[in-house]
């Protein structure tokens, strides 16, 4: 009888533990699912310390998403970078846009893709798959691995991840600078030496509020909002750090704070909308001489 009772209890405990088989184990924080933020451009500059560029062009007190004039006075920028950002700002002021990987339908790459308004995370023990809402771009992170000695550069780079307590830490190198590659929406350049470290954590609303407030202070909120701003459940906060010695005077950090989308994701196909956005020319589509099959 006692043996049977113990067996039953064991069985029930085993069953209960297996019900969430698709989810990570109890010791691993569960980031799976859809996450979203409504802001444009999306990065949340920190309140202090080296951080991402703000938009000098303001509309209703916040970033004007159709006139992108990066703050070239930001001390993270090296002199040559200042000139590039200033030039893009002048282009934007003289019309309303310039080509970037998002509006030219190129892989957004890191860290640019982190500005995407939606992120879906699939956690597996050996790999994390991240799908971004913008053009449904897919990125893969190998867990508990190392970068190869010789990395072939790709748009999303070589990403390896591990858990540190309640945080998912992703380290990325080998990021290929494509023809429209940029760090942010302001044309800040990047080189193949770019190194990005991301830290993802789940936060209660009270702890996420600082990030949400910084997002609202800098970014535009398109209408109608695609995210439930009254959501008070768990938020996902990304803190990312960027290093690129040729471009920046120092490493810098910013955050992106995600809540929950109000609806299912709609199909988002950049190829249907690669307009020039004021660049006076059509999308600069690359060409190749060989078939892809």
């Amino acid at each position, binding site marked *: *009888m*006692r043996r*049977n*009772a*113990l067996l*039953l*209890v064991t*069985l*029930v405990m085993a*069953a*209960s533990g*297996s*019900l969430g*088989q*698709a989810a990570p184990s109890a010791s691993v924080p569960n980031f*799976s699912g859809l996450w979203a933020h409504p802001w*444009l451009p999306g990065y949340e500059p920190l309140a202090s310390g080296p951080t991402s560029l703000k938009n000098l062009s303001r509309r209703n007190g916040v970033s004007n998403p*159709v006139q992108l004039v990066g703050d070239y006075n930001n001390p993270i920028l090296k002199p040559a970078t200042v000139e590039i950002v200033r030039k893009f700002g002048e282009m934007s002021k003289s019309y309303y*846009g310039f080509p970037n990987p*998002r*509006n030219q*339908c*190129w*892989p957004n790459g890191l860290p640019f893709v982190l500005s995407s308004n939606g992120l*879906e995370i*699939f956690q*597996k023990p050996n790999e994390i*798959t991240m*799908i971004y809402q*913008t053009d*449904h*771009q*897919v990125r*893969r992170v190998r867990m508990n691995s190392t970068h190869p000695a010789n990395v072939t550069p*790709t*748009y*999303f780079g070589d990403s390896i991840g591990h858990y540190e307590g309640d945080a998912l830490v992703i380290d990325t190198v080998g990021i290929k600078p494509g023809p429209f590659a940029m760090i942010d929406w302001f044309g800040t350049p990047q080189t193949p030496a770019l190194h990005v470290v991301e830290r993802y954590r789940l936060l209660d609303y009270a702890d996420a509020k600082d990030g949400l407030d910084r997002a609202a202070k800098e970014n535009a909120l*398109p209408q109608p909002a695609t995210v439930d701003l009254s959501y008070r459940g768990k938020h996902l906060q990304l803190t990312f750090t960027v290093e690129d010695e040729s471009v920046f005077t120092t490493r810098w950090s910013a955050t992106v704070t995600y809540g929950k989308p109000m609806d*299912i*994701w*709609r*199909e988002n*196909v*950049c*190829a*249907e*909308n*690669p*307009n020039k956005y004021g660049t006076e020319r*059509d*999308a600069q*589509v*690359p*060409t*190749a*001489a*060989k*078939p*892809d*099959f």
Partner: protein
Amino acid sequence: MANPEAGMRNLLLLATPYSLLPLLLLLPAFAAEKATPDFAGYWGRNSTDFEPPLSGPGPVTNKGRSFYARFGDDTNPILKPEAAARIREASKATVEGVNFPTPSNQCTPWSPPYMWRALMVQVLQQKDHVTITTVGDQQVRRVRLNAAHPKNMTPTWSGDSVGHYEGDTLVIDTVGVKYGSNSMIDNYGTPYSEGLHVVERIRLVDAETAKKAAERMEALNGRVEVIAGGASIDPEARKGLRIEFTVEDPKYFTTPWSAAVTFRPALGVVEERVCAENMHDYNSGTDVPVPRADKPDF
């Protein structure tokens, strides 16, 4: 100090039928979840064509018998005259040495069932939906589980896909597939309309079945080598993933028809493949006409 006898009494109390009842109620759910077949992972193959059924109406096949020479069989009785004409038009382009535009070479979305031409797919299973990514150009398709199609749907490139499990099989029903200038059912230019209805049945098969299916397709249409983008197959694989699908579209087909594709577990690192880097139109000397829109995407 803990009382061992009281501890055992509590354990036995926990083990009585009444106290166990709520926990035991979890067991059927556990059993159901365990019964859900596990399709998760990367699956690859070395052919981009559809497998004809052993009998009955099947897909358009390649008269060219080569991956690099695509001449769809326009005499297939599933085809209505207009569909056959479209296939002849595409074949003519191949004869003239100018490949015809396809979703693959024009970097436009791969709708079902065309998406099953993929050489590698990733399946991600969750409780309420299944996500399928095609590794070529990293396209994403979502299937809502145990849901119904909306009454009024806006057509999308992937269509509205709803799925459910029937034993060891995932059944996906798709309607509302958008049709564009490059849209096609297969590699041969077979057209479809917005009346397209696709039902896919996905299940695991044993390694031998998967191997035979792969060999059959490679014999029929040639093999896409790894260096040309074909998958590197795990030689130790004990299973395969078979997708059998049925296609209906009264505008272009005389009858519903069926086909299949069979994948095997893929090895190696999933490489980034970016169609935007390779969208030449293959021999006509000009770049592809990318679609345009007049409004920003934000």
